[in-house]
């Protein structure tokens, strides 16, 4: 069955939280509900689920890749052209440390920037269901579900005090 989204617009946080409770009471799952706000309310203010993300993995993986490339580059070139200098070992850590640090950081930065874009699901060519009043302080609840359940959700949102309901694709 086709899925559709609706947006219920609320003027204050308390009514929004009550509407979320009503939707959950009506059997809607966390993944069917989304909160839109113009300010970062503390996580869980509306009883919404804690989103999961993998953002911290990106810098770690990037740093590991960067370090691996740096070690490969420095150790590889020194082993390929082994010249003993000043009695120091061919693979001298102090000589490799600067490039290893820089490689680690470059990898971490690159992967973090990529991770931010990926995890935020950006760029979005279409904003999706939205109302400009969100940035004016209004709070939106987006319900994305099957056609029949969306109709039911609309009624629930109205009863919970939504000042306007908008439909989207």
């Amino acid at each position, binding site marked *: 069955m086709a899925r559709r989204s609706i947006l219920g617009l609320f003027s204050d946080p308390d009514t929004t939280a009550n509407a979320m409770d009503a939707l959950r009471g009506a059997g809607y799952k966390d993944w069917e509900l989304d909160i839109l706000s113009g*300010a970062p309310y*503390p*996580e869980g203010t509306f009883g919404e689920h804690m*989103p999961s993300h993998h*953002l911290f993995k990106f810098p770690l993986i990037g740093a590991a890749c960067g370090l691996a490339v740096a070690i490969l580059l420095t150790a590889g070139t020194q082993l390929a052209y082994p010249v003993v200098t000043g009695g120091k070992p061919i693979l001298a850590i102090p000589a490799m440390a600067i490039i290893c640090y*820089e490689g680690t950081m470059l990898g971490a930065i690159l992967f973090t920037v990529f991770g931010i874009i990926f995890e935020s699901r950006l760029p979005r060519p279409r904003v999706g269901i939205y109302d400009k009043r969100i940035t004016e302080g209004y709070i939106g609840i987006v319900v994305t579900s099957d056609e029949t359940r969306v109709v039911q959700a609309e009624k629930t949102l109205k009863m919970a005090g939504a000042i306007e309901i908008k439909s989207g694709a």
Partner: protein
Amino acid sequence: MHNGHNGEALAASPEEVTQDILRKHREFTPRFKALVAVLAVLFLLGVVGFIIRLQDGFEHRVKWGYYAAVVVYLLTTAQAAPMVAIAPRLAKANWRRPVSRAAEMFGVVGLFNLLLFIPLLFLLPSTEGRRTIWFDGPSMSPHIWDTLAMVFLVLCGLAMLWAGSLPDMAAARDHSSGRRQGLFAKLAMGWRGTDLQWFLIRHRIGALASLYFMFLVFTHFLIASDFVLGLVPGWKDSIFPAFQALSALQSSIATMLVTMFVLRKWCGYERYIGLEQFWALSKLLLATSLLWFYFWWSGFIIFWYGRQPVEQNVISLIISGPYLPIFFTTFILNFIIPLVLLIWNAVRRSILGPTVVGCSILVGTFFDRIRLYVSAFSIEDVTAHALTVVPPAHTPDIADILIIIGALSGAGLSYALATKVFPVVNIWEIKEYMLLRVQAAFHRMEVTILAKPE
């Protein structure tokens, strides 16, 4: 309740704050246009100076000493300024909210400075036959790794600015029309303010901020090592790169104090930037000024006590010799004046006092970069075993003066133009603070109660 602690702004509603900041953001006042015009003309003068300098070629490094000094000055001041947003954000200090964007926007100046950095690569000699931090690496190692460091520092700064501005770009998109709306819609990249997006913005800025801090110190280590230490034969000093990084932290605070004063005094942001921000930064400025002396002394005392001929020559080159007046100026402006003024509570707890000290440090740091980079660029034979002859002071010519004026104006111009793309005061962070704080009666006084959800 307006007491200089941003009280007036916080008494307004979040929507009023949004409207007010966005109105200032889109206004092109006659004063702003005049500023841009003056900066553009001065920047063009700098371009003329650069063309004159180019006629001399890159054979004589000494002629580019002042150019190098101004590039590193911008690295020390403007590119370090995002630290004023980073450190308090990691420490969850709420006073930073109105000024964090103004600090992050110096990332745009970093992009300008990256362009200025390119000619320096043609001036850096091969590492063959001289001692550098690259040991026996390829002879072009500093050229490659220093460039990568500068590029990624700028990339990280811009990513931090963009990531932290997404909600405000969306607000600008929703409150504008026509071409401006199209521009902000592109910059907002479809931001809607979902709980996942808000969750990520908190964490992504923290990740980028940590990386920027680690990379800023490292970039200073590379630039100080390759463009000063590596060019002065026999100068072996493990403290100098750390001294330059510390100087950048001190200058970042000074840069932001002066920027905050300008934004407050002439750009209409006095509702948001108040005594609280100046007071908090003045304490950090005093601490970094004391550290400035500590780091300088630690480096100096080893050379002074060692008394090897090369150590005496290095001291003569950068302190007691031809650049003695510049050293004294730096010492007074970067240490004596901050110490003498900022030890007083009344000065620290004011808006004008920390700003005056900030100006002093910015001028002092400029002279410090001249003292170090012009003197290092004056050394002809960089492959010598030791510095045996201290070259005379190199005075600036007309091209140098034009380049200095142009580079500083270009930095100012890029920042001024960026204020019309990114709101210079962070809207969403102020709104978050307004959500979390409550004014309440406490016996016979009114206090601010701040929620700490984490």
